[in-house]
C-alpha cells in the first residue's frame, strides 16, 4: 500500500500528471481549475506555465505533445470556449505523445458566468471523455487518460466539476513513471491541416470514434456494480456519489469514460435490472446517448433537474419525491463578497459611482463593483468584453453618450483577451475610454502570476510587460497612470478624458491589498480612528458609501474595526467633516 494523503481533486490531478510522467503543463487561472497548475508547478520534473490565455495554454501544451512530450492543459469550463479553435482541430491531427485537456465545469455557478456542460465538447469534437468521481479516481484516471490518448492517437477531454475539484478525499499515492520523449517525425499529412489533408483526417477521426466505442465497453473505467435488480442507475462523475448516498443498494452502471457511450455494456446492464434511471448533473448527456440507442423508456431529466448543481437531497427529492425531515430554512443577514479593506478597486468604483458613468465590466474581483454600494457596472459577459462591449455601446448610442462611458478591465484580463479589443477601437475610429485596473496580479483566483508581474508560475524572475507601452503600441496616444487611492486626482483625470474626442486609457496602478509586500506596508501604518464627537454617522454616511468592510455603523456613528483596517486613507479623503484620522 502506498502512502495515503487527503487531496482535493485538483491536487490529485497534479499528482496523477506527475506519476504519469508528464513533462509540460499549461493553464490560465480560473475557478475551479486553478489549483491544478499551482500544484503541478511544485514538481521539478514538470515544466509548468501560466499562459496568457486558454487558447495559448492549449496550443503550447499541444505543440509539446506533437513534439513528443506527455502534456496536460487545464482550464475552467468557459476557458475551453477560448481554446475551442485548437480543440476541434487537434481532434483531426491527433497527437504524438499523450495529451490531456482538463476542463473544470462549475455546476451551480459558484464562481462562473454560466453553467455550460463541457461533456458536450467531447461529442462535438469527437474526443474520448473521462470523468472521475473522487480524488483517487482523478489521480488514477489521469494516468489512464494518457494511455488512452496514446493508444488511439487522440487528445482526451478530462472533465471535473467544482465539487470534485474542491472536495478533499483520501488518495493512495503512487510513484512517477519516467516516460521518455517520443521520437518526433515530421508528418505533413498529419500535422499540416490543409483542406486536402483535413479531408483525409476526418475519415480517420470517424474510424477512431468507432474503435473508441468498442473500447468503452471493455475499459476498467466503466463498471457495473451489482446490487438490487429492481433499480438500475446510470451515472458518472460526482453524481455517482450522490446517487450512492441515496441508493446504496441499487445496481449501478458507473461510467468513468462516458463518451463514446458503451452500448454493449449498457445492453448487458439492461438485462440485469427492472428499471433504469439516469442520474447526471446539468445536461441530459448520457440520457440522450441512451435514447439514441432506442431505449426510450429510460428516464433521467424527468426526475433530475437540468439547472443548478446536484446534491444528495436533490437526487432524493427528484427520484423518490421525498426529503429527510429537516428544519425550515432561515434567511440570515446578506453577506455578499466585498472589496477587501484597502483594495485598489474601491477608489475606482467609488469615483465611477460619483460620476454616474455607464460601465462595461469584465471578469475579476472588480466584477463586485456591480454590487452595492457602488452598483457601477452595467455589463459583465466574459474575459475581454469590458473593452469591446464599451465600443459597442459607443456605436449604438453615439459619441456624446460614450463620453460618460468606461470599459473596465483587469491587468491579467487585459493581457488575456483585452488587447485585440483595444486595437479594434483605435482601428475603427472609436473614442471609447478604457480603465485598466493594474493590481499587479491575477487576484480573484488567489494571486497567480501573469506576464506583467515579472515572475513565472515556477517563481522564476522574468520580463515584466509594461502595460502603458502596450497600450501606446495599440495606437492609443492618450494614456494616463493614476493611483486609485488618490480619489480626487483620479476623478479629475476621469473627467478630463471624458471630454476627449479620441480613445484614451487610464491605468489604475496600485497592487492588490492582499499581496505580501502590501501587507508588510500595512503593518507599518496606523489604524484609522473615527472621532465620534465630530462624526455625523447616519446623517452623513460618507465613509460608509466607500463599502470598506472595516467601516460599520455603531450606535449611530461610523466605527473602524482595528482587526480589518489596513491604514489606507480613503475614509479620511471622503469624510467631509474631518472626523477620521
Amino acid at each position, binding site marked *: 500500500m502506498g502512502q*495515503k494523503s*487527503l487531496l482535493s481533486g485538483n491536487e490529485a490531478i497534479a499528482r496523477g500528471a506527475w506519476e504519469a510522467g508528464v513533462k509540460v503543463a499549461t493553464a490560465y487561472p480560473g*475557478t*475551479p481549475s486553478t489549483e491544478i497548475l499551482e500544484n503541478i508547478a511544485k514538481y521539478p520534473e514538470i515544466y509548468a506555465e501560466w499562459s496568457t490565455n486558454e487558447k495559448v495554454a492549449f496550443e503550447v501544451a499541444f505543440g509539446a505533445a506533437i513534439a513528443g512530450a506527455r502534456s496536460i492543459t487545464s482550464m475552467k469550463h468557459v476557458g475551453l470556449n477560448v481554446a475551442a479553435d485548437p480543440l476541434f482541430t487537434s481532434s483531426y491531427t491527433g497527437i504524438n505523445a499523450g495529451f490531456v485537456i482538463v476542463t473544470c465545469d462549475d455546476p451551480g455557478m*459558484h*464562481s462562473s458566468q454560466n453553467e455550460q456542460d463541457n461533456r458536450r465538447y467531447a461529442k462535438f469534437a469527437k474526443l474520448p471523455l473521462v470523468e472521475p468521481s*473522487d480524488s483517487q479516481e482523478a489521480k488514477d484516471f489521469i494516468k489512464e487518460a494518457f494511455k488512452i490518448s496514446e493508444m488511439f492517437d487522440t487528445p482526451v477531454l478530462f472533465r471535473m466539476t*467544482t*465539487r470534485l475539484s*474542491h*472536495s*478533499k*478525499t*483520501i488518495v493512495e499515492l503512487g510513484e512517477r513513471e519516467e516516460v521518455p520523449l517520443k521520437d518526433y517525425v515530421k508528418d505533413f499529412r498529419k500535422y499540416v491541416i490543409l483542406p486536402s489533408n483535413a479531408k483525409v483526417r476526418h475519415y480517420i477521426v470517424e474510424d477512431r470514434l468507432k474503435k473508441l466505442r468498442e473500447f468503452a465497453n471493455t475499459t476498467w473505467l466503466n463498471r457495473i456494480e451489482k446490487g438490487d435488480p429492481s433499480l438500475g442507475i446510470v451515472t458518472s462523475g*460526482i453524481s455517482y*456519489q*450522490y446517487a*450512492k*448516498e441515496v441508493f*446504496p443498494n441499487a445496481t449501478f452502471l458507473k461510467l468513468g469514460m462516458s463518451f463514446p457511450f458503451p452500448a454493449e455494456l449498457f445492453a448487458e446492464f439492461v438485462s440485469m435490472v427492472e428499471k433504469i434511471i439516469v442520474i447526471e448533473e446539468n445536461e441530459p448527456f448520457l440520457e440522450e446517448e441512451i435514447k439514441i440507442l432506442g431505449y426510450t423508456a429510460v428516464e433521467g431529466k424527468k426526475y433530475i433537474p437540468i439547472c443548478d448543481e446536484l*446534491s*444528495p*437531497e436533490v437526487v*432524493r427529492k427528484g427520484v423518490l419525491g421525498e*426529503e*429527510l*425531515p*429537516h*428544519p*425550515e*430554512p*432561515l*434567511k*440570515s*443577514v*446578506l*453577506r*455578499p*463578497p*466585498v*472589496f*477587501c479593506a484597502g483594495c485598489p478597486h474601491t477608489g475606482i468604483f467609488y469615483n465611477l459611482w460619483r460620476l454616474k458613468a455607464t460601465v462595461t465590466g469584465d471578469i475579476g*474581483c472588480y466584477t*463586485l463593483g456591480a454590487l*452595492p*454600494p457602488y452598483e457601477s457596472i452595467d455589463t459583465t459577459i466574459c474575459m475581454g468584453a469590458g473593452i469591446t462591449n464599451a465600443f459597442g455601446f459607443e456605436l449604438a448610442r453615439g459619441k456624446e453618450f460614450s463620453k460618460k462611458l468606461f470599459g473596465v478591465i483587469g491587468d491579467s484580463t487585459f493581457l488575456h483577451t483585452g488587447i485585440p479589443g483595444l486595437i479594434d477601437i483605435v482601428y475603427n475610429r472609436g473614442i471609447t475610454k478604457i480603465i485598466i485596473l493594474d493590481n499587479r496580479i491575477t487576484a*480573484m*483566483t*488567489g494571486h497567480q502570476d501573469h506576464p506583467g508581474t515579472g515572475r513565472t508560475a515556477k517563481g522564476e524572475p522574468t520580463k515584466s510587460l509594461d502595460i502603458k507601452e502596450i497600450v501606446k503600441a495599440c495606437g492609443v496616444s492618450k494614456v494616463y497612470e493614476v493611483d486609485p487611492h488618490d480619489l480626487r486626482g483620479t476623478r479629475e483625470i476621469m473627467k478630463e478624458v471624458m471630454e476627449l474626442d479620441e480613445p484614451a486609457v487610464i491605468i489604475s496602478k496600485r497592487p492588490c491589498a492582499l499581496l505580501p509586500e502590501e501587507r508588510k506596508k500595512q503593518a507599518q501604518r496606523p489604524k484609522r480612528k473615527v472621532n465620534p464627537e465630530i462624526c455625523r454617522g447616519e446623517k452623513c454616511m460618507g465613509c*460608509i*458609501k466607500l*463599502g*470598506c*468592510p472595516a*467601516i*460599520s*455603523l455603531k450606535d449611530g456613528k461610523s466605527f473602524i474595526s482595528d482587526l480589518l483596517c489596513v491604514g489606507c486613507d480613503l475614509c479620511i479623503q471622503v469624510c467631509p467633516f474631518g472626523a477620521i484620522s
Partner: protein
Amino acid sequence: MNSVLNVIISGVGGQGILTASELLAKVAMEAGLDAKKSEVHGMSQRGGSVVSHVRLGPKVYSPLVEKGSCDVILSFEKAETLRWIHYLKPGAKVIINDLEIIPVTVSLKLDSYPKDVEKIIRERAGADVFLVPATELAKEAGDARTANTVLLGSLSLLLPFEMRIWEKVISENVKKDTIEVNLKAFHLGRNYLKI
C-alpha cells in the same frame, strides 16, 4: 464508528474555516476512517459567507452533507449559523463562536443583523446550542488567530477521537513556531464546554 458523522463548519471568509475542516478530516483519516470534505473557493474569499462540509465514517460517498442529516454545526460567527439550520437532524448539536461580524449590508441599511440567534436555533431546530468565547480563549492561549483551533477543541468533545490523534494532527499541520499556542488553544476550547 459504525455510521457516518456529518459536520458543517460555517463562518466568514478569512476566519480559518478551511484550515479547521482540513484538520478535522485529517484526524478522521489518522483514526483509520474514510473522510471527505467539500467547500467552494473563489467568490467566498472576499468577506462573504464560507461553509465547509466534513463527513467521517467507515465509508463516505457524497462529499456534501444532506439536508436533515447534519450531526454538528460548528459556527465561527453567530449569524452564519442560521444559514445552515435546515441541514440539522433531530437532536443535533450546534457550537457557536460568540462573535458577530457585521456585514457592509447592515451599515448600508440594506439588511439587519439577526437577534437571538441561539434562541431561534433551539426553537426552530430543536438543537442543543453551546456558545464559546473563542476569541477571548484564543487571546488567553497567546494568539487571537487561534480562535479556529479553540473551536476545534470544543468540537472534539462531540467526536470519538483520542487526544493523541488531535495533538499529532495539529502539530503536523500548523507552523512549527505556533504548535504550542495552537495546542493550548485546543485544550482551552475543549475544557471550556461541559457537554
